[in-house]
């Protein structure tokens, strides 16, 4: 297994810790929606507005914005922009980087003060960086999770679905 391409496996118990953390953050900030993303744009966990159908696209766009801001930082010889704040008419978005791997995004309305969001987000990112550390450390074999026949089944599905 090539270590540079090693998949990130988030175990059940860690997903629970993440969910609890997001629920708490949503309650304390009255946030409308909270997302935890991988830097590649994949949604790890999502909390809040259950009617939201566009979470996948939202994840891709937010991660793209963050990656783009990182390149701006490099041009400015800044180490990193670790937080981003976008102000809307109805809703605001606050985004914070967790280590170098995950992105925490809080969508909240005008009733919540940005200062409160910043303080509580800092607390949450500290907690989530511990989870990230544990996820990185675990060396569970992929076949334990996926099963040995997974790849064969996957190839069959790819052949079936991806055709003219």
């Amino acid at each position: 297994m090539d270590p540079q391409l090693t998949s990130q496996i988030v175990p059940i118990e860690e997903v629970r810790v993440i969910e609890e953390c997001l629920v708490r953050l949503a309650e304390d900030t009255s946030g409308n929606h909270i997302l935890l993303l991988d830097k590649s744009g994949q949604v790890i966990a999502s909390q809040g507005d259950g009617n939201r159908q566009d979470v996948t696209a939202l994840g891709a766009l937010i991660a793209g914005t963050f990656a783009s801001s990182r390149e701006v930082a490099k041009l400015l010889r800044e180490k990193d922009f670790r937080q981003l704040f976008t102000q809307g008419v109805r809703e605001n978005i606050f985004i914070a980087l967790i280590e170098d791997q995950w992105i925490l995004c809080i969508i909240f309305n005008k009733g919540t003060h940005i200062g409160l969001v910043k303080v509580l987000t800092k607390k949450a990112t500290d907690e989530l960086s511990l989870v990230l550390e544990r996820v990185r450390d675990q060396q569970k074999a992929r076949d334990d999770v996926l099963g040995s026949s997974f790849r064969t089944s996957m190839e069959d599905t790819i052949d079936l679905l991806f055709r003219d």
Partner: protein
Amino acid sequence: MALINVAAREIHCKIVYYGPGMSGKTSNLQYIHNQVPRDAKGDLLSIATETERTLFFDFLPLDLGKVRGFQTRFHLYTVPGQVLYERTRVAVLNGADGVVFVADSQKHKLEENIRSLRELAVNVTKQNKKFQEFPVVLQYNKRDVPGALPLTTLDKYLNAMGWPRFEATAATNGSGVFDTLKAISKLVISKL
């Protein structure tokens, strides 16, 4: 890096279509979006200029359904090909599990192809990944254009690494598009 969520039993992989401007990256995604069954795809999201050139990226989520109990999703992205968007390409490439390099078969595009491929190698390396081991599939697009370079010439200049490579006409009849997608998907899965 692929993401495996054990609690939700989900696997997510990111595939990026890379290559010089106007080589047909967006056409690949448009063709896939048109052909894949409705329940297996999300909306095709394009952040483009007023003249329909890609400004940031195109994004197409594909849902392969449950495979051995795991909901498997491929997220396809394109980068903007124009030279000035170099930094934007770095941003989109972030966290990719595999790349389709879409080369333009026209003679006058050969140099642009070579330059774009070199840039890809630099950008992958910058992400602390070994380019020699990174999953790449090559697509020689626009094979139907009169005067398209012979495969031997394209191979000589673009495929020193011996990647799987496919001929395609993405914008006209979509030939080769799914062969390319199948190849990169399987390559990415083999690295999970």
